[in-house]
Structure formats: C-alpha cells, structure tokens
C-alpha cells in the first residue's frame, strides 16, 4: 500500500512527458509494420494496416493520460480559470447576478441561523446538549404541562437512572427589601442544591447553594444574580453576608452568580428549596424539573423510563391519576407550538425568496446563453465534449453563487444583529442568535445547491450539440422565440411565489393594524398602569386585601395631575380571567357544558378612567360587591350573547370556581360600550365586569389617567400604606400594547421585508426578460415602425407576453395563497381573516409593479429610430 501510494505521489509530481508515449507508439508501429512487410505487404500498405490495427491514436493517448492519478486536477484548474475569465469578462452582468444571489443566500443564512438557535441549538451552558426539562402532563383532556409535586420529584429522582443530575426549582416572583433600599420585585427560583453544579456554574463572589442549605432549620440564604448585584447594590464588593428580607423573611446573601447566568430561565435570585409540610403534599404542584441526561442516553429513552415511573405513581396515588411525564429539550419545551411554526414559516418564506432569486439569475443566464452559443459551438467543434462544457458552465454558476453567498454572509450578520436587538426584550436569555458550524454547513450547501439550480438549464441550453447551425447562423434569429417558454415559466413562477409571500406578510401586517386599532375611545397614551401584589402572609384574607385597596383608592385619586384613577384586575386589552357561568332559570348541571365568560374585577370609576362609556344603567358604587349587593356590568356584545333579544338590566347569573362552587347570584346593573380585553384571539368570550369587593383579589393593576408621569406618586401612595410593597410592570398603556403586539411587529417587518425583496426581484426578472426579448427583436420592430405601426401596436407587441406571464403567475399564486391565508388565519397569534378585498389589493399592487416593469422596455422600443433599428446588428 505504502509503496503504491508513494509511486502514485511520484507520478503526481513528475508527469510523464508527452513525447515518451509518442516514442513508444512509434516503436510499436514500426514493429507492426516490419512484421507485415515480412508477411509480404509493401511498405505503404503495411503502414496503413498497422495504423488501422492500432485504432485511434489520440484516444489511446488520452486514455493513457487518464490513468495518471489526479489527472482531473489539471482539467479542473483549467475549467476554473475559464469560469473566472467568463465572470470577469461580463462584469456588470456578473455583478447583478452576485447581488441577487447575495440577497437570496444572505436572507436564507440569516433565517437558518435564527431557526437553528430557536429550534436546534443546545442551551449554551456546559452539558447543555444533555439538558432537559421535566414536567408532568395531563394525559386526559388538554395535554397541558403541569409542575411536579415534591414527593413526585423525589420518586423520579430516586427511581430513574438515565440522568446524571436531576434538580427542581419553583418559579415565582419575590420582593426583596431591606432598610434604606426600596423594595423591589425579582424573579426567584427556590431550587434543590445541585442546580448550579448541573451546569458547572460557580459564583463569582461567595458561594452557590450547597446541600446543607436544604436542611430544615438551616440558616436561610439567597444567591443573587449579576444584574441584581450591579443594579440594586451598585456592585459593592462586601455584598456577601448582607442581611436582606425576601418576601418579608430574613435571609443572608451568600453569593453572586456570573454575568448573564440566569439559569434555568431568567432568574434573579436563587434560594434553597427547604422542604416543609406543605411541600410534602402530593397535590401541591410547584416544581419544574431539570435534568442532565447521562452521556449517550437519548431524550426518548429517558422519556420511556420516566413514563414507567409515572405509570406506577398514577396507580399508587389517586392525585396522580391520569398524569404522565414529559421529558423535552429546552427548545422543544419553550419554543414549541406557535413559535416553531412562525420560525419554520420564516424559513419557508426565505426559501421562496431564494427560489425567486435563482429564477431571476437563471433567466439572466438564459438570455445570455443565446449570445454564448457561438462560443460554446466553437469549443465543441474544437473537440470539447458536451459534458465538459456543461461542467465548466456549472462551475461558473457555482462560483457566482459562492461569490454572492460570501457577500450574503455579511448581509446575514447584519440581519442577525438586528433581529437579536429587536427580540432582546422578549426572548429567553438562553437563546443566542449566533452562527455555528451547522449554519456554515447549511450556507455552503446553499451556495452549491443554488449554483446548480440556476445553472443547470442555461448550461444545458448553451451546450446544445448543434455547432453547425450556430456557426452558420451569422444573421440574427429574427423573431424566433428560442427557449422562450422556459423563461416565461420562470417569470410566472416568480410572480406566483411573490403573491404567496405578500399574502403571508399581509396577514401579519393586517393583524398588527387590527390590534393597534382596538379600543379607539381609550386614550392609551395618557393611561399609566402598574401591578401590585399583596403577599399572603401579611394580607391573609379578603377583608385585609379589600381594606388595603379601600385605603389606597382615595390616595390614587388625589395624585396631582391625575384626572381619574381606579384599580382593575387587568388594564384594557391586557387579558382576563375566566369562569363558568350559569344564568338564572337556565341551569346546566354538567360543569363541562357550562359556557365560560371573561371578567375583569374593578373599582368604581374604572370606566371613567379608561373613557369607556356606559350605555345603560350605572357604574358600581362603594356598596356593590359587599354581601347581598353582588353586581356586574356587561358589555353590549356580552349582553346580546348571554340574553339575546332581552333587556339585560336586572338579570341574574352566578359563576363557578375551579372547585365547582357557585358564587352568590349576581345582578346586572349596567351595560358598557364594547371593548377588546383579549388581544390574542379572534372570538373572545363574553366580557363582564365585577366590583373588586366581590372577592378579595391579591393582584391588581392600578390604572391612572394623567398627562404627566404619575408613577412616583403612585409608588408613594402605595408605600405610604405599606413600605414593603413594590410596584411591578409599570407601563403607559400604549407601551404595554406595543409590548403585546411586539411579536407581530417584528415578524410583520420580517415577512414584509421578504415579500418586498421578492417583489423587487420578480420585477427585475420580468424587466430583464422583456428587455432582452425586445432587444432581439429590434430589427423587426424597426421594420414595423417603418411600415407604419403606431405606438399602441408596438406597446402591445412588446408587452403582450409580459402581461400574459403576470396574469398566469397571479392566478397560480392566488390558488396557492388561499390555503396559506386560511392556515395562518387559524393560528391564534395572527387570528385575523384575510378578506377578498385584501387579496385584490395585494394582487393589484403586484400586477401594477409587474406591468410597470414591462412598460419600461416597451416604451424604449416605441422610441426606436426605424432607420437605425433596421440596421441594428
């Protein structure tokens, strides 16, 4: 083997000389001739026969050459040089192609990077590729994920063998406070002690959690995140050992975690999970499980093992009946469903853009292939095989697409940066939008694939083996429509795909506009909201909570500059709670069949604050909601749905809570104008309002209508009553709305960008095709003008083909866009219907752009000087 390899290497470096073969051949022929002469032939005849015996000399020489190891490398470099020469010889042409491909490949690389980060890339922590999230799930009904109870967690942890670490955390908000520092709300995880070691995280100051912290009666400790340290404590060095209060309970800060460490999910504070009697109840589901699988254990296998355990638990404990377990990677757990669909849609969208780009480039190359046929015919006449010509042309295409791709890579970097910034406020901290090896692999595959895709048809066309025809054909192929059908199909395809893209983008933009236009009567830019949570340990019952809000309301109303103030369980358009309803005289025994309604609890004066008028009846009074004064206000829409055709005033109903306990009978005292409370759905439940006194809510939004920023006064009002209460989620209502439609805004922009780029490319494509066809018909047009064709005749002549292509493209595109619109419209996040007028608007916009692109070259044709056109060569 080695010697063979060395010999090959030697011949690779030192080629055989050409003359060597000739010499050997001459000897062979001489011998052959000598033998034939000896057999009695004369010299001339002997030579002739010897040559016939031997066969093709040149062929034999080539075959000998092809035996040489690596003989094709020379050919390849020759092809490469040829291709580069071809690219540089037509600088503008190549530039246009490279730019088009840069857009197409760049966008695809960008979106693949995003998709990869959201759906495939492991969590960027040590062992992140083996990190899974473990939750229970409801096997009956909705298949919802549920947290684990502590005893369940312990059972899984002790019985399962497929993991290295198995830890659990709660997921809650907590208020941190101390003397001389205003209370502040943070995201707190109470976790089992191994949570840091499972991802090999070490505190940068002090220590992380350790097992002794978990023992009952251990001194309470808290580990703080880097941001908390920097922002709340200004990064002081002596932070470790400081005494603080967390939710009113004393704790000692024992460590600070590194920057950007917020494992598992946006955590600010970590505390040990200290088991207590409450935690040991199997029905108390508070924990989220996280595990590091053993190396080479597949998620599926871990799932199987834990499912076995969960089946045992379900048999053993009644509260675990119908509960299963789900083991999922972070991507599957947190980026599943809607998010996955949107990202895959994005990938499909840019895929279409690339197809349009390739069609564009293919069209440009097709139009040039006509001009190139001469060059190729000469080469083929000189003995190049068709395969060789095709190969060289394909090499040229791939080279072009690689150049375009490299340019696109820069474009992709920019796009990823923009997306990274645009999504920073919302996206989980463990998603990093960066390129990695799979992305580069995808990028390389894309370059080669698109090069072949747009190159194959023009290459086959150019290399058509008819050298004689073309060489003879010195004159112009007047009026001949060579290969016209292929570029027509490409243009139709482009317009169809662009229409589909525009439809998708239109759906996003439309639902964004619909959402932004909700509740026009509410002055969202003047309304400030902030949430307030009353902790259970200090506000133990309804009376205590109602008492607090009773005291707070007058203070809110007296805030300087505030014209109105109220409290509500949710500000306008910020979502609702829902319960089952039963109308008086229409009992429904089966809870599953009772309709559900949405409701907002509020204080008197809420409607004035948000400027929603009451159409009938009255606002709540201070006695509404106290026992025997249960009252409600319904929207006009709810009234019509609950009591169709009747006057709702004075009607009674009751609500059922999760334990199927009915409330007292509640009387309708007023009817308000309609308003949108649930932004993310197409058919909201009937909406009604109840007074806050009806139940003692512990989590309310303060709503203040004031021209100047009332937040400091709101905070002051709250803290004058309770110094330990922070305000969370402070927002102007319009900013909060913006936050809600953030998703639509970003993706609307993304898809609109794709669609516009697609439209631009399609127009450039049709422009190029028409312009080229017109140029080839210059003589013909000149003759027509000379013979008296008027402006309209010429326009019709040139544009007819383009208009035909656009119409077919639009019809095909509509056929494809309808099901897409239907599919997208059924997704809750878009939840808007696309009407016929919308389709019409989009289609006519596209048609207009397309016609304009055809009209440009047609106009030029009408201004031709017939004399010069006829002589045009």
């Amino acid at each position, binding site marked *: 083997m080695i010697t*063979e390899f060395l*010999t*090959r290497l030697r011949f690779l470096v030192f080629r055989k000389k050409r003359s060597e073969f000739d*010499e050997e051949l001459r*000897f*062979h022929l001489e011998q052959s001739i000598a033998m034939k002469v000896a057999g009695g032939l004369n010299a001339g005849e002997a030579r002739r026969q010897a040559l016939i015996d031997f*066969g093709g000399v040149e062929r*034999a020489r080539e075959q000998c050459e092809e035996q040489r190891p690596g003989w094709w490398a020379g050919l390849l470099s020759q092809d490469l040089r040829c291709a580069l020469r071809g690219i540089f010889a037509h600088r503008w042409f190549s530039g246009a192609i490279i730019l088009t491909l840069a857009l197409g490949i760049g966008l695809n690389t960008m979106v693949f990077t995003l998709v990869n980060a959201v759906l495939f890339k492991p969590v960027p922590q040590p062992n992140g590729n083996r990190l899974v999230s473990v939750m229970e799930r409801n096997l009956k009904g909705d298949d919802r994920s549920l947290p684990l109870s502590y005893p369940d967690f312990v059972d899984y942890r002790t019985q399962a063998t497929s993991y290295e670490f198995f830890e659990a955390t709660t997921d809650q908000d907590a208020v941190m406070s101390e003397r001389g520092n205003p209370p502040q709300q943070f995201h707190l995880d109470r976790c089992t002690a191994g949570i840091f070691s499972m991802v090999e995280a070490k505190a940068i100051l002090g220590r992380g959690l350790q097992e002794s912290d978990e023992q009952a009666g251990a001194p309470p400790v808290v580990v703080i995140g880097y941001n908390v340290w920097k922002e709340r404590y200004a990064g002081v060095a002596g932070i470790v050992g400081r005494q603080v209060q967390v939710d009113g309970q004393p704790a000692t800060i024992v460590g600070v975690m590194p920057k950007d460490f917020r494992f598992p999910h946006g955590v600010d504070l970590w505390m040990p999970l200290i088991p207590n009697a409450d935690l040991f109840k199997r029905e108390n589901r508070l924990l989220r499980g996280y595990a590091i699988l053993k190396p080479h254990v597949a998620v599926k296998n871990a799932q199987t093992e834990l499912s076995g355990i969960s089946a045992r638990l379900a048999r053993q404990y009644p509260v675990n009946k119908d509960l299963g377990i789900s083991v999922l990677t972070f991507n599957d757990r947190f980026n599943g469903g809607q998010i996955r669909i949107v990202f895959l849609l994005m990938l499909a969208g840019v895929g279409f853009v690339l197809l349009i780009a390739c069609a564009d480039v293919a069209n440009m190359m097709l139009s040039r292939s006509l001009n190139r046929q001469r060059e190729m015919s000469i080469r083929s006449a000189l003995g190049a095989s068709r395969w060789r010509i095709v190969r060289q042309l394909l090499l040229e295409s791939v080279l072009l697409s690689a150049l375009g791709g490299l340019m696109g890579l820069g474009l992709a970097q920019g796009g990823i940066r923009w997306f990274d910034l645009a999504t920073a406020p919302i996206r989980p901290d463990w998603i990093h939008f960066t390129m990695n090896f799979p992305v580069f692999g995808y990028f390389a595959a894309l370059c080669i694939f698109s090069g072949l895709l747009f190159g194959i048809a023009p290459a086959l066309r150019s290399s058509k083996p008819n050298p004689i025809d073309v060489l003879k054909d010195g004159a112009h192929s007047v009026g001949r429509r060579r290969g016209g059908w292929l570029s027509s199909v490409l243009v139709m395809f482009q317009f169809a795909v662009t229409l589909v893209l525009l439809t998708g983008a239109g759906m996003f933009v439309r639902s964004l506009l619909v959402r932004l236009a909700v509740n026009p009567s509410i002055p969202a830019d003047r309304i400030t909201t902030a949430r307030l949570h009353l902790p259970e340990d200090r506000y133990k019952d309804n009376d205590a909570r109602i008492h607090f809000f009773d005291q707070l309301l007058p203070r809110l109303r007296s805030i300087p500059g505030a014209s109105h103030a109220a409290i509500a369980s949710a500000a306008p358009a910020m979502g609702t709670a829902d319960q089952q309803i039963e109308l008086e005289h229409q009992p429904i025994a089966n809870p599953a069949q009772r309709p559900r309604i949405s409701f907002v609890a509020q204080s008197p004066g809420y409607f004035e604050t948000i400027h929603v008028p009451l159409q009938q009846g009255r606002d709540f009074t201070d006695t509404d909601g106290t026992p025997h004064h249960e009252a409600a206000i319904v929207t006009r829409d709810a009234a019509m749905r609950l009591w169709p055709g009747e006057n709702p005033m004075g009607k009674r109903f009751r609500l059922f809570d999760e334990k199927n306990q009915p409330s007292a009978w509640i009387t309708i005292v007023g009817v308000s104008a309609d308003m949108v409370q649930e932004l993310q759905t197409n058919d909201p439940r009937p909406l009604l309002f109840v007074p806050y006194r009806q139940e003692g809510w512990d989590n309310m939004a303060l709503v203040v209508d004031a021209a100047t920023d009332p937040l400091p006064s709101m905070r002051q009002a709250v803290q004058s009553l309770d110094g330990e209460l922070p305000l969370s989620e402070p927002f102007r209502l319009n900013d909060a709305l913006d936050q809600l439609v953030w998703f639509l805004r970003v993706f609307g922009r993304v898809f609109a960008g794709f669609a516009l780029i697609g439209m631009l490319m399609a127009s450039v494509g049709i422009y190029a095709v028409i312009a080229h066809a017109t140029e080839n018909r210059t003589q013909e047009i000149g003759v027509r003008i000379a013979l008296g064709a008027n402006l309209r005749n010429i326009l019709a002549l040139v544009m007819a083909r383009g208009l035909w292509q656009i119409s077919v493209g639009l019809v095909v595109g509509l056929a494809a866009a309808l099901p897409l619109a239907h599919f997208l419209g059924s997704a809750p996040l878009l939840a808007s219907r696309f009407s016929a007028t919308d389709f019409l608007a989009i289609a006519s916009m596209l048609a207009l752009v397309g016609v304009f692109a055809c009209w440009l070259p047609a106009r030029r044709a009408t201004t031709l000087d017939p004399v010069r056109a006829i002589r045009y060569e």
Partner: protein
Amino acid sequence: MPTSTDLLQGTLDLLILQTLAHEPMHGWGIAQRIQQVSREVLQIGQGSLYPALYRLEYKGWIKAEWGSSENNRKAKFYRLTPTGAKQLQSEVETWDRLSAAIALVLGRPVEASR
C-alpha cells in the same frame, strides 16, 4: 482470422503481469507473446494495451526503462517489481478459485488445481 475472445474485465492486468514474470519486455512484445501463447485466441487491442501498461506502472506493479530492442531500436521495456510479483501471485490464486468455481457451476470435472 482466428476468433478472438473478449477479455474479462481485469484479466488483461493478470495476463500482462504473468507475461512479464519471465523477463522484461516492451509493449509490442507483450502483445505478441500473449497472442502466441494463447494460440492466437487472445488478441490484445493496442488501444487497451498501453492504458493498461500505464495503469500498472502508476500502481507500481511494473516499472518502465528505456533499453534497446533485438534489432537495436530504442524501446521501452517493462519489468515486474516485487510488489507486482506479489500482486501476480494473489491474482493467480483468485483466478484459480474463480475458474474452479465456474467449472463447478458448469458441471465440468475439476482438474486438480495447479
């Protein structure tokens, strides 16, 4: 013309190696020798002889040197290398196995091999 038989794929290499096992030879000589020994059954097409020789040379099984022929013409002589000899042996074994197997399938009596 004696009927010629198309050579099995790869058999040409074996024939050339076997022919060169006795003494170094030039291309013409190899073709003639194979023709003679096979009693004119095996006609080596020149078009395939030289590519085969080049292939074997590139594989390092034979080595070419310039020498002078019987009639004092400059000619290229091919000589079996030690690797080539080894290769020849293994190819002969393969051939024996193969032909014995084919003979069995065809129902012919098998001669004691070699």
